[in-house]
């Protein structure tokens, strides 16, 4: 695991632990999508339209697993 992958995994696991509640369990697609974003396109500033599109993808992924 590279240094980048390592810190992303560490922070992602911590964030999931902090935001998982009895009311909601995240589908696997959500952390997977965030992992990809953190390791890739989020490392450069993104345009608002790109962020909106990513938000829609995440909302959809979060709904599909329910």
């Amino acid at each position: 695991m590279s240094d980048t992958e390592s810190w992303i995994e560490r922070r992602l696991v911590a964030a999931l632990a902090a935001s998982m509640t009895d009311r909601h369990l995240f589908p696997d697609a959500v952390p997977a999508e965030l992992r990809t974003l953190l390791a890739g396109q989020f490392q450069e500033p993104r345009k608002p339209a790109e962020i909106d599109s990513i938000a829609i993808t995440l909302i959809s992924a979060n709904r599909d697993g329910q």
Partner: protein
Amino acid sequence: MRLKAIRLQWFRGAASEATLNVFGKSSVIYGTNGAGKSSFVDGIESILGAGKVGHLGHEYSGRNQEKGLINVARPSGQHTKVEITLVDGSSETLTWQSSAPVRAQQGATAMVRWDYRRTALRQEELSEFIRDTKRDKYSAVLPLLGLSRLEAVADNLRKLCKAIERQGDLPSFRAKLEIAADRRKEVFGDKTNEQLIERLEALRRTYAPAATVESRARTVADVQSAIDAQIASLDADQRRAAVIGEVGASDLPGRILKVIEAAARIAEVAEPLIKERLDVLSAADGFVTAGSLLQGPMPCPACGREIEADEFREHVASERDRLSAAQKLYDEHRAAIGELVDEVGRLRNVFAKRDLAGWLEALCPENKLAVKYFDELSVADLRTSCGPENIRGLQANLLPLVARAAGDAKAFQPTVQSLVEHQNEARALSGSIKASAIRAGINRAEALINLVKSLEAGVLQEIAERARQTFESISYDIQRYWKVLQPNDVITDVRLVVPEDNDKAVEVALRFHGKVQDSPRLTLSEGQRNALGLCIFLAMANKAGSDDRPVILDDVVISFDREHRSRVGMLLRQEFSERQIVLLTHDREWFFELQRTLPVNQWSFRRLRPFFSPHEGILFADHGLDIAAAKARAKTDPEEALGNVRRLMDVALGEIAERISLAVPHLRGDDNDHRTAGQFLVALERAATRSFRKKGMDTYEPHTSALAAIKKTKPELAIWGNRGTHTFSGSITEAEDLISGCEAVLSSFMCDSCGTPVGAYDSTGGKVECRCGSLQWRPE
């Protein structure tokens, strides 16, 4: 990737060409003030700074600094050009054809990753980091170790939270929840969830006892259908009464009120917000126009208060947050309108029922006008645009109709009243059950937002941890360098620290006589500040040097005394032997000291001739080439050849004097750096008896030919010095004689056997020799 050459053409002090070839080695370049050393640093800065040079950023330098960058003597048709070549052959070029520079690149050059602030340091920038604000210090450190990428990640995550809120339509869902809660309270008061479930079960038993119980949503739908069916089976009067009751039970008044309240909240912020926004935008525009060189404190263009430039950034950040909050109000207003329009649409359907016809016929003329208004109202248009005028229309027309229906419903038979009441309860229960699903959706979206927020917090923590590690590492280097430069100093524990109140700021802390100081600005002298500035720059350059980029230091020892200048050489030798250093200095004494102390296999040494004119430009004092050039020139232009050889001797004899530690009378101030060849020859003649040449194995004889050459050339050079100053005349013979004499003088200090000059190596008893020991100069 190391530097191979910097080539200048009509750039700053350079004429048709001035090339500093370093071939990947570390180099020391000596030149008197104005010789053109800094032109090479300017060249690097212009390449790294898209054609701009920081110290030329003033009102007189022209739009593209063309008045400062282009040599005033550039002939028409010639271009100004800077070309930097790296050892891998890649290069980057800037060419000023008219005024704006044109960039060209050869190969994938590593220079794209260089930044000026961690590549070059000039004398006037030495204490810049110390003078910087805490936030600017942080910005200077941030690019190290890729923290800027993490900053981008954190910023994108922050924006993603807002985008999820917006794209998930959370304001609209929250508005639906609010309406459902209001409706529930209106119909059921403070009844608990369990009591509501019991009520639903009671309604089911009454109206749909045979229906299968699958889910509450299904049960409430069954109950609503059963009630509708019962109403449909009533006689015409009863049916009309039920429909009137349905109209009267509408929560339209509550929904209109929500829109009015949301609009009022917007009105509270909108006008001052727009006004202040315009002020801030004007202020930002002013800042942009003024450029980035502005430093606080300065009057804030938005509020007139004296503030630091940093504070302005915070002002903008707070403005952004305030606008986001205002945006949320607009979202809530839009959601409230959505809910209102839904109810208007539902009433429209109820009004269309035939059963209501009689009631409508019997209405008073005023209410009939209201019905006409309702008939002509476009629900679709209302959804896209619902302004204050529309709200007033709904209030004036629909609310009286609803009120009239509610009043009329009170007089209906108990059976009908009960049906209408149960129908209303079923609708409220349906809204509550749908609200539960909406609540689950909101929870899901909020959980996602919390996840992204936690992730953002984690990334910010990652940034803080990495920054701390970077600061510790840089602090460790600074302390190490500081010990070399100031071994016995009372200033200790120099380090970069993150202030407790601001994690996006950095300050330099230290101990002065053991006492902790929050800033070096409080206690350090100028020399100490500059030494500290040099240590910080070198520590940061070291941190940024994974790709072996050069470190360029321009006249950085100007405020250092002799001992501390020596220590800079020691520092470079000890700590930067693996890096390419390009050192430019006007300190001849230090130059020759470095020539003696730095390893010749890693370092090269070049000298610049004093600047003569923009037409001649920057010239290197390379002896062999210049003597040969002077000889060739003597045939066609003896006056110029005489002038050239005299200037050449000014530099070359100074170098020899330094190398053999020749005692020369001390002059006042800068005059020590401007001695002429004649002055050196007088001192050399007086001391020439200390010059020896090897005779046998361990025996030496006086170097008589050196003395003879000096004796012969001294008067000739003195004569030409005077004539050159006053008459500018000289013959070919005079030029050739003087050049030959000068060549003989210089040759007598250069060993024929090993090709190195006397003084290049130290010997015992203070003697200095050439590498093979054939030439020797003894101390007085």
